[in-house]
């Protein structure tokens, strides 16, 4: 078995969740690395969309920001930002939204706004950006986040974008017709919503990770599906493509400096 880091396992597991015919709304950071890894391995036809308006982009390096020239130059076309949010996102033309966050709860609601009270925050985070509508307008949502007690919390300080709200049919009762978070990919495990309660439950554990480790990095009592798999370890090919993508990105940044 190849030697790899938990973050690499997370990115590779997230990439595997994407299919060749997906239309995916991609956030910067880990979602962008995972989505491009998918495109460079098993899903060459995947259509990646960034909120800067770049449609079906194929960047050679990972962008630092959502509107880097690399995204525009390799896209089929680039639309304005109002068009992006009206026709493409709100219009229902995006199948998968890929999100991360600072805090998540057991129903996969996300906080990217504040730590502490809104009016007197301990930490002011960047805010929601596109997430509030990505969370409800994309066909389904994948979330990628490293686990820790600080980020996997019993109660969010602020709900920036909804997941399964308070569980059960609470999301549908708000009038939302899309599926919401169907996969949560972490550095330790894969979670999916329980069919009834909608609580995110562990369905697969990454190689070498224990249940104790998962609980120690989660701020609520973790539930497990009836059948829990072991995640397949990264293949040599997956690791090679991911590392080459990251090295290419680092070289390009160094050359531009």
């Amino acid at each position, binding site marked *: 078995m190849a030697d790899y880091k938990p973050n690499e396992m997370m990115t590779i597991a997230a990439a595997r969740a994407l299919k060749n015919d997906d239309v995916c709304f991609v956030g910067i950071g880990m979602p962008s690395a995972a989505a491009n890894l998918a495109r460079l391995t098993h899903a060459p036809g995947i259509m990646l969309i960034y909120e800067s308006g770049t449609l079906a982009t194929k960047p050679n390096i990972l962008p*630092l920001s959502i509107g880097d*020239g690399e995204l525009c130059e390799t896209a089929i076309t680039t639309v304005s*930002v*109002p068009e992006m949010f009206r026709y493409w996102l709100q219009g229902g033309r995006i199948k998968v939204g890929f999100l991360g966050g600072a805090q998540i709860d057991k129903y996969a609601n996300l906080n990217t706004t504040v730590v502490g009270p809104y009016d007197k925050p301990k*930490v*002011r985070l960047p805010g929601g950006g*596109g997430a509030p509508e990505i969370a409800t307008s994309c066909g389904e949502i994948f979330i990628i986040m490293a686990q820790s007690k600080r980020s996997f919390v019993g109660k969010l300080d602020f709900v920036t974008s909804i997941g399964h709200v308070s569980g059960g049919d609470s999301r549908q009762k708000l009038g939302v017709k899309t599926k919401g978070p169907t996969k949560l990919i972490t550095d330790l495990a894969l979670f999916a919503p329980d069919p009834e309660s909608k609580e995110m439950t562990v369905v697969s554990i990454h190689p070498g990770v224990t249940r104790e480790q998962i609980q120690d990095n989660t701020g609520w009592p973790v539930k497990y599906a009836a059948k829990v798999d072991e995640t397949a370890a990264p293949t040599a090919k997956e690791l090679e493509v991911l590392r080459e993508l990251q090295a290419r990105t680092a070289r390009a940044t160094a050359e531009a400096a």
Partner: protein
Amino acid sequence: MARISSLAEAIEATVRDGDTLAVEGFTHLIPHAAGHEIIRQRRKGLTLIRMTPDLIYDQFIGMGCVDKLIFSWGGNPGVGSLHRFRDAVENGWPHKLAIEEHSHAAMANAYEAGGAGLPCAIFRGYIGGDLPRVNSNIKRVTCPFTGEQLAAVPAHRPDVAVIHAQRADKAGNVMIEGVLGVQKEAVLASKRSVVTVEEVVDDLGPRSLNATILPHWTVGYVVEVPGGAFPSYAQGFYPRTNSFYKQWDAISRERDTFLTWMDENVLKKGPEVFAEHVRKFRDAAE
């Protein structure tokens, strides 16, 4: 018809204390040079609108120009926090900053509504989250035809829009190619406007037939400022200087290093430094 002027004259003529400004750009074409001129002219009490307030907004806030920020994502993309923005919100330095926080969809729709001369924007959004709880400008309306509950926010109607573009001709027709952002909507929604460009030319030259996004009678002032988007980028002219975005994290983290940098690089300089920043890319292209 647009007036071709110097940067100092354009800002002097359009931006007043207490104005509502949209200094827009979406990763691409962020008008840093024009922003520095606003700071040099010591404008105060501004309400600033921007979808993605980044380094130039961090500078406005840290220099005490801003009373209120209307925004949807305030960070240094791919790097981390905007430290001056955080210091203002968390500690009230250099003074208290009021915030009106939205989602991107709301902001984009609000610009479009402003450009369309409507009082508000209506869209499907803000379902279930906490933003409507902390922002009283997020309301719900019922579709008169289907009964669907939709979100409504006030249209953006800035006093002044400030944007950067690749090219204008001498009449002031403005051309943008690449990531378009919300700049066209911001200018059409505003009472006054300043457009800085990489070059003012006799003829816009070979281009897509749709690339002239703002015809001359919709534009107030046009100013040639080569490199005026640095460290942001101008497609076809120079790339984004990602290394500066990373350096900004250290420059802006502490108040004194920030003030020293602003003094040396903004207050004591003029718009001509921007051409220097991008000279190596120009030389490489020639």
